[in-house]
């Protein structure tokens, strides 16, 4: 086992890795989440520093999406605290959380499919419309990352290709000028070439100062594109540490994900080979 990888028996430990928790942008502190009587998360903790890239990995049903939803306010934790920029946001409604600077791109994109590309971007700007920012300059800034969306501005979002839809999802999230961008399954249903293009765009966005939290089924890709990572299993954080250390120790991941992690030089797998249950409308 690599010495720098932190295994957390109690799972109550907050991942710090030298990040001073006072400087943390987001702190998730021992949260539980229930769906009715079913407990989905057990004392999950996580911190994200300003401008940091963090991955959350784990098998299907481990609680990755639930964790993201608790952070963005779509679900309320039944226990524990979430603070963003020093302010408590646990249990706050999602429409308030986005105003604090957290943008969440949900799994399956959840665009406004009946609305045009431009209208989706206007919707993304909704939380900023009274913040004194100009819509047009924000849109032009965001569109610089996605030239193709400029050409599609008046097309209904539902008529875009899968890759373009995901680009619009990211663009819409960026319209709220977030300090933390949460992305759930960026690669879902997309061809590898488009996925790596999207990861390049995320890196660009991150270089401009936005912290990024990703959930990703392709573990190798998630670790290669982040600074730190946490592994979830059955609703608990079982492993956390610098991404490159986790990447160097494929056995560790294999233990918790129930599959063999790819060697670093191996190209990312196509969805159909390892995850046949995923939707496969690849483009």
């Amino acid at each position, binding site marked *: 086992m690599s010495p720098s990888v932190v295994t957390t028996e109690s799972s109550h430990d907050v991942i710090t890795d030298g990040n001073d928790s006072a400087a943390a942008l987001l702190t998730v502190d021992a949260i539980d989440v229930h769906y009715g009587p079913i407990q989905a998360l057990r004392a999950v903790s996580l911190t994200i520093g300003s401008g940091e890239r963090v991955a959350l990995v784990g098998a299907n049903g481990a609680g990755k999406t639930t964790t993201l939803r608790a952070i963005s306010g779509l679900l309320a934790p039944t226990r524990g605290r979430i603070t963003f920029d020093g302010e408590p946001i646990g249990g706050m409604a999602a429409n*308030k959380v986005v105003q604090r600077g957290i943008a969440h791109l949900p799994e399956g994109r959840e665009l406004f499919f009946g609305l045009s590309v431009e209208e989706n971007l206007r919707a993304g700007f909704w939380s900023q419309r009274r913040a004194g920012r100009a819509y047009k300059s924000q849109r032009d800034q965001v569109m610089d990352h996605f030239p193709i969306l400029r050409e599609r501005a008046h097309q209904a979002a539902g008529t875009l290709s899968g890759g373009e839809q995901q680009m619009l999802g990211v663009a819409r999230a960026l319209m709220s000028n977030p300090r933390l961008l949460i992305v759930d399954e960026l690669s879902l249903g997309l061809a590898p070439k488009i996925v790596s293009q999207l990861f390049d765009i995320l890196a660009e966005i991150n270089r401009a100062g936005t912290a990024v939290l990703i959930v990703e089924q392709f573990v190798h890709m998630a670790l290669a594109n982040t600074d730190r990572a946490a592994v979830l299993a059955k609703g608990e954080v079982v492993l956390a540490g610098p991404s490159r250390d986790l990447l160097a120790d494929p056995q560790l991941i294999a233990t918790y994900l129930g599959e063999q992690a790819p060697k670093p030089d191996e190209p990312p797998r196509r969805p159909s080979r390892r995850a046949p249950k995923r939707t496969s409308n690849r483009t």
Partner: protein
Amino acid sequence: MPHVLRDLLINVVLTVPLVGAYTMFALGLVFIYRASKVLNLAHGAMAMLPAYIAYALASTFGAIGATLVALLAGGLLGVVVEIVVVRRLRSASATSQTVGTVGVLGLLIALAARQWGTTPVQGVSLFPRHTFRVGNALLQLGDIGTLVVALIAAAVFIALFRFTDLGLAMRCAADNRRAARLMGIDPDRTTSMAWCFAGLLAALGGIMLGASTNLHPYTLSLQVLPAFVAALIGGLESIGGAVVGAVVVGLTLGLVPSFGQIGKQVGAPQLALAALAFVVMSLRGNRFSVADMAGA
């Protein structure tokens, strides 16, 4: 002009007030369906009660003042029904919510019958009682007024949905409530707004229909039913479709009596309407697409 054609023309002219009222009702049904995915079966009662309010207040505030108060009451009634009944049932199925609106229908009819009795009365008219002669038929100025007001209302709401921030928020919430929340939009608020607008339009339609026919707790509440067919023809989610549907339904009800002895029989127009609804639904199948909303 041949007899048949002249009859036809007269009957078309006589559908004018119906088309206007159905447009306003169908628009409201569409707003509500888009926002709540509920068929508001209380819509007729939500038209009838404000019409009575206008009637009751007319001697105090005058026709225009009473109408304005009744319109506000209609908007408020929409919000109250949404918050008190529909929102509470949101975790239940859309069917349960629809049944909830039936309860509201019964309650409002009972309230009106208790307060104003069940003898028909003449509703408040916003327009002078001036009549035109079209062939053998008489058309009131108010009938034309109803159609004009309805078309203006439709244009105003189409513009509101297309060009304002509020309209964008309402369309987003109708398309995907969770995604709307993630954008900072409060979908509960936009849903209440949709019910408010629907209540306002129902009140306007009810007042105008009460003036061109008369006011009765049951009759006026049931006169809204063809508007359901109109909304259905338009695809339930399309504003433009609701207007087209209202014209089709109004013409069907008005024109059937021109077609010989069969057309003149009691219930023939209604039967034609039912057949029309059946044909449209079979042709559309499940294609009540969200894409309709893009065209709003």
